[in-house]
């Protein structure tokens, strides 16, 4: 019986190996994960790691030298233009492969393949929005343009060259922890990534919430709560600009009032939405306003703050162009940056380019729908969603003349549905090639190159700022925008005929723009692009306050230096509170206030309106405003559907500034008529109760109360940087909120030798085990910048250069 011990010990060994190699018994394959030669230890990068490299690839046309500086920024020098994209793809993959793949999986509605059925709702939502459909159309456009195709082919081939060279031990740590491996890159993935940006920037709509608001409130109340103009608006293109008569004449259908604008049927539905605060600042000052006499361009796009960062800093130098700036891991080119002649930056246009139409199908088979007095055949797109550890999920999406039927009986995004069919008309479904914008901008030498480049930008529409060394500055509110009649697309529209369809696009030469304006600067901060004299309808909801303070500051300042611009980009002055606080202070009735209430009122009074981390005033003001909104509106909204548009902040502020007997101050549930004093005082007392609690928790100062954090894309706290000491907030130039804010701050002074500064909340390496993973974050939080170095040939021996990578053709 000597065999028995063998059998037992062999079984124990096998059992151990299986348990430690799989997730059958343990939550993680601990043996595989902790093996020092395979697992996570391999991602613990040596502090003195050597990033030098000498590699050869048959895909290259010439020699490529990459110089990595002390911040791990690659300066790429090539002999052939397309080689630069190969190496860009290779380096993006080397430092950021996991995020690149994850974003394209998410964009394509394939997240379930990685994380299982908990992502199924997300995946169905994205597929029903037609993300894959849009990316395929876009890819066709991209591949029809020889320059775009060549750059994408080279980029893809660079990413794949890196993926092929990867061994198990070199996989990014997230693949090891989640347990999967990368698949080959493709041009479609770059197109998907760009559509993801369109989703983030140009998919926001409140149509469903607004439809409910319109149905619930009287027309007069609706116009007060959701006005199409704000009193404090200082538009991107200044008031007084004269616009020519519109070339596209749009007119509402005769039934617009009866079946649409005054239709009062309620919907009950909700949808996954991109963050509405995806905004940004950009401005350019002409030489007449700067100390050097040369233009300065500034940009800080506000996006979700994540690790690894959305951005990767690079210099791309080829015989045909030399550019520097923020690149997107996932796509070729510099996206926001500068070259030897000019600089450019963007903020989101934010117009409504996603509308819904109610479809009438003949029956549940959805094969035919009623359109223009006939039954029209539906086309179906079958979406097969692979689900990890589970069977495939098949979703059949009906496509109409408007676009895919996103919501129907089978899909309401796990929320309540009213069993209607809504097709989505999204501008991002139309053919366009946004990558060409950036390829051409990298080459741009002057204003006319800039105009030629950016008119390719269709969706997401952007306010595109420009400044050049020859002294030009410009701003175009660029996009391919539907020409709408007033109110079109604010609510769900009837889809039984063509009368409610978009009637045309605004001609490119009618997009509001400014070129070397007399005031000596251009700026945008997502506010409404033009005043009410602009002949096309621009929608309702735009944030006015950042634009107001930016324009006030730029008007006042002269002899501007880059340091002045740093101070301005990181400025925390609260123009919203500047307007609202006097109304509050004038109306608060402090008779009978207790010790705490008195204390907080004094703090509010003595606050200098700056949202600094150590200030207590902004915490008090912010909580007071929230409570004031509740006191004013809770009664009106008590019986409203839960899915409803909240009144714009500016509606309430404009309301009480205009009129101290603002209609909604009265509590409709009481017989007496409440006044502004009563509402403000009640709000203050409610706020004080919350403030006492917050003070006990020790979070009364603004930095601790707001608690800005940069989350890892998986939200794993140890890979994130939470509770950062940074001020600002939503109405301030430094628009840093809880998990959202300036994702790349850039200042470019276009003197003979370009002087540029920048910083982003992340680090060049996507590896949580690298010291380059988050090393920019403290600098960013402190409002400090790095000098951006446009390296020249001959500077290879500069002591900022730490490593060299040589790429050669085989």
């Amino acid at each position, binding site marked *: 019986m000597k065999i028995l011990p063998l059998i037992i010990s062999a079984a124990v060994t096998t059992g*151990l190996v299986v348990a430690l190699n799989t997730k059958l018994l343990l939550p993680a394959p601990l*043996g595989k994960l902790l093996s020092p*030669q395979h*697992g996570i230890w391999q991602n613990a990068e040596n502090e003195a790691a050597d990033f030098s490299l000498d590699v050869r690839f048959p895909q290259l046309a010439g020699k490529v030298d990459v110089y990595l500086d002390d911040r791990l920024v690659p300066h790429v020098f090539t002999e052939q233009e397309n080689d630069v994209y190969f190496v860009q793809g290779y380096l993006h993959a080397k430092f950021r492969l996991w995020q690149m793949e994850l974003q394209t999986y998410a964009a394509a509605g394939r997240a379930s393949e990685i994380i299982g059925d908990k992502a199924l709702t997300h995946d169905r939502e994205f597929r029903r929005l037609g993300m894959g459909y849009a990316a395929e159309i876009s890819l066709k456009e991209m591949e029809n343009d020889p320059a775009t195709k060549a750059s994408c082919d080279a980029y893809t081939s660079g990413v794949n060259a890196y993926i092929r060279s990867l061994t198990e031990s070199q996989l990014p740590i997230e693949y090891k*922890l989640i347990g999967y491996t990368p698949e080959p890159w493709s041009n479609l993935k770059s197109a998907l990534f760009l559509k993801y940006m369109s989703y983030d920037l140009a998919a926001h709509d409140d149509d469903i919430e607004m439809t409910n608001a319109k149905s619930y409130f009287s027309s007069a109340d609706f116009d007060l709560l959701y006005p199409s103009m704000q009193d404090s608006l200082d538009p991107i293109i200044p008031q007084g600009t004269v616009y020519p008569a519109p070339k596209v004449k749009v007119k509402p259908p005769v039934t617009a009032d009866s079946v649409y604008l005054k239709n009062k049927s309620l919907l009950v539905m909700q949808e996954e939405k991109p963050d509405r605060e995806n905004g940004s600042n950009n401005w350019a000052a002409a030489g007449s306003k700067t100390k050097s006499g040369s233009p300065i361009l500034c940009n800080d796009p506000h996006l979700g703050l994540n690790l690894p960062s959305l951005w990767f800093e690079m210099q791309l130098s080829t015989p045909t162009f030399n550019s520097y700036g923020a690149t997107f891991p996932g796509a070729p080119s510099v996206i926001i940056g500068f070259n030897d002649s000019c600089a450019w930056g963007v903020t989101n246009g934010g117009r409504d380019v996603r509308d819904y139409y109610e479809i009438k199908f003949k029956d549940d088979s959805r094969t035919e729908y009623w359109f223009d007095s006939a039954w029209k055949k539906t086309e179906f797109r079958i979406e097969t969603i692979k689900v990890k550890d589970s069977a495939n999920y098949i979703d059949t999406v009906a496509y109409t003349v408007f676009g895919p039927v996103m919501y129907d009986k089978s899909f309401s995004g796990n929320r309540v549905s009213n069993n209607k069919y809504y097709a989505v008309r999204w501008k991002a479904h139309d053919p366009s090639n946004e990558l060409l914008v950036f390829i051409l901008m990298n080459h741009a030498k002057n204003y006319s190159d800039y105009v030629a480049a950016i008119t390719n930008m269709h969706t997401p529409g952007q306010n595109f700022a420009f400044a050049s060394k020859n002294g030009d500055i410009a701003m175009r509110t660029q996009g391919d925008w539907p020409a709408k009649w007033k109110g079109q697309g604010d609510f769900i529209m009837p889809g039984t005929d063509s009368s409610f369809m978009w009637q045309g696009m605004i001609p490119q030469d009618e997009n509001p723009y400014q070129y070397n304006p007399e005031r000596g600067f251009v700026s945008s901060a997502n506010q409404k692009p033009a005043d009410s004299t602009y002949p096309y309808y621009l929608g309702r909801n735009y944030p006015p306050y950042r634009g107001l303070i930016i324009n006030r500051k730029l008007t006042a300042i002269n002899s501007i230096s880059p340091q002045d611009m740093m101070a301005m980009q990181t400025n925390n002055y609260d123009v919203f509170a500047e307007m609202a606080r006097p109304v509050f202070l004038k109306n608060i009735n402090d008779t009978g206030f207790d010790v705490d209430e008195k204390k907080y009122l004094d703090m509010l009074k003595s606050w200098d309106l700056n949202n600094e981390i150590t200030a207590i005033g902004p915490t008090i003001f912010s909580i007071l405003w929230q409570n004031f909104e509740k006191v004013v509106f809770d009664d009106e909204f008590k019986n409203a559907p839960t899915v409803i548009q909240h009144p714009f902040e500016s509606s309430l502020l404009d309301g009480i500034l205009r009129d101290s007997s603002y209609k909604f101050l009265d509590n409709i549930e009481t017989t007496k008529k409440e006044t502004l004093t009563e509402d403000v005082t009640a709000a203050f007392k409610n706020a004080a109760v919350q403030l006492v609690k917050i003070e006990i928790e020790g979070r009364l100062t603004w930095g601790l109360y707001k608690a800005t954090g940069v989350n890892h894309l998986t939200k794993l706290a*140890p890979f994130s940087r939470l509770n950062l000491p940074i001020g600002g907030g939503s109405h301030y130039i430094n628009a840093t909120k809880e998990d959202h804010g300036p994702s790349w701050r850039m200042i470019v002074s276009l003197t003979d030798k370009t002087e540029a500064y920048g910083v982003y909340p992340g680090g060049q390496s996507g590896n949580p*085990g690298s010291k380059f993973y988050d090393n920019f974050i403290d600098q960013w939080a402190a409002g400090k910048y790095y000098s951006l170095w446009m390296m020249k040939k001959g500077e290879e021996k500069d002591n900022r250069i730490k490593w060299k990578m040589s790429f050669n053709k085989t």
Partner: protein
Amino acid sequence: MKFIISIILIALLSVAACLYLPWWSIAIVSFTVASLIPQTPGKSFMAGFVALLLLWGSLSWYISQNNNHLLAHKVSMIILKTDSPYLLITATALIGAIVAGFAALSGCYLRRS
């Protein structure tokens, strides 16, 4: 002497095997060495156990030291729910040790059967 040689052989061959093979090749190495070098079951087990305890412990410690324990702090919080690089190193060493120990024990029994 056999014990020391076993430990050294298992450790060295494990490093070599793991360059090309999955992590569980440490079990094959320990099994093979123990089946070739005659020792008591207890000593065989201990040879595998000690070899990998030392090997995985020192390798992970060395890597982590050069990383200033940056990643070990983070991963220990994810896997062990406590911020302790040394606990993660200990866990690594013990996992290697126990697998190699039982594999070596099996090798020993194979020779004896």
